[in-house]
């Protein structure tokens, strides 16, 4: 039995949106190379502050980690920030046609990296909000 679904292999071999955004509005980094997976997501937000106009990522990791990053970037690109924040790990795994059980936790970090990038953007844009929340 192959280790990964066809969809995972497709995204692994032909990852979408690999790269960096030099003037990104938000950057999110999760994972640790010591554990084997690390992802950095870059986002560009529309001037009205509503839509994710562009997403790029760089990932160090296994086949699942690369496929997850690619899938998350595809799922969130062009969506509103509100919609993008609703993307969960399980949704990503489902879209990929499933992931091996042992990869569900360690490699399935794309949604978290995206959320961190959005939070980074919000922190920069509305520094006062952070204080309100706390």
């Amino acid at each position, binding site marked *: 039995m192959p*280790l990964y679904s066809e969809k995972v292999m497709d995204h692994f071999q032909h990852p979408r949106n690999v790269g960096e955004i030099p003037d990104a509005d938000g950057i999110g980094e999760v994972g640790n*190379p010591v*554990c084997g997976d690390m992802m950095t997501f870059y986002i560009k937000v529309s001037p009205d502050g509503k839509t994710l106009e562009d997403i790029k990522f760089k*990932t*160090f990791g*296994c086949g699942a980690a690369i496929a997850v990053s690619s899938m998350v970037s595809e799922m969130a690109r062009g969506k509103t920030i509100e919609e993008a924040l609703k993307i969960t790990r399980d949704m990503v795994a489902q879209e990929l046609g499933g992931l091996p059980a*042992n990869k569900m936790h*360690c490699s399935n970090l794309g949604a978290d990296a995206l959320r961190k990038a959005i939070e980074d953007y919000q922190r920069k844009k509305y520094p006062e909000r952070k204080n309100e929340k706390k």
Partner: protein
Amino acid sequence: MKEIYLDASNGTPLDERVLEKMLPYLKEEFGNPSSLYSLGGRAQEAIENARKNVSELIGANPEEIIFTSSGSESNNLAIKGVMLSQNKKKHLIVSAIEHFSVLHPARSLSRLGYELSIVGVDHQGYLNLAELKNALRPDTALVSIQYASPEIGTIQNIAEIARIVHSAGAILHTDAVAAVGQIPINLKELPVDLLSLSASQFYGPKGAAALFVRRGVRLLPQIEGGIQELGRRAGLENVAAIVGLGEAARLLKQEMSENNQRIIALRDRLIEELPKRIDYIYLNGDPKNRLPNNAHFSIEFIEGEAMLLFLDQEGIAVSSGSACTSRALKASHVLSAIGVDAALAQGSLNFGLTRYNQKEDIEQVLEKLPPIVKRLREMSPLWSHFQKTGERMVAGPGTDYEHGEDNEQEK
């Protein structure tokens, strides 16, 4: 697409000639070796012939060979069998780079009231002999040290280790699963007390292995309830596989040195050429004193499973010591023991050649791997950080880039 198999440490292909010898015992010669009629007698004879061949490969006496089902079983039998037969001595020593089939039974014993010491290794994987001497105690019963590492290839100085262990009055077991059939071992001259070997590592079938137990060494059987193997390992014998083990041993006794000349030339081509085509690649283990068929590298800024999958797309089968490729999701304990940084260990690739490999196979690797590395680095945040700043994003404890660069200069 031609499949290129370079994963000998996970098992070698079955020699056609070995298969031919096995087939009758899967067909008409199906007798139980313990049965008294002729059919059983012929099976018994086949097993004893295999025992003779295995003993001749390693310079043992036939009655010193116990057949088992796997290298892991041999290691378990050695560790538990020796320790559980001891009346007073409750201490055992293993190295930090042992196979899990040594480490885990040793840890199990330590939970049952035995005491375990784990001795470290140096950058090339050689056992720290001073540490071994310090660890030895009057109540040390057993020391178990791998003969050669299936991962990083380094061959231990077992003769010197045996001298140290024996002078402290302890028994020495060596897991030689990766070594037997790859390098000559003569137990007439090498005073180890127990030695594990497995047919799956030298062109024999899976399911047949052996433990050499020198005459006079006490061992408590781990599988009981039958007279097989002189009561030391009960259970109906896997006759065909044992016949295969014997035949593989017989053939290697004749062919090993010829095989090795070819294999070493191919292996050295990988070791010399890959660093010319890939930057930031480090050879692990001793560059010279290593298993003839082993080349093990850590490639920086990328992860092993991703490399392995892309190589698989090209028909090339290798293994990796990355966390992602292990079921336990932990990077190789061997790489950690030799001081390879935990992030760097993720990018390791283990090439294990067999005698069936051709020059073209190696050329394929040399052609296909560099673009895979380039592609994965272009995706890697660690690589882009390094490109922009000239600094490594992470350098955990034990980071040993300098050592890797030393290796490179030696070539």
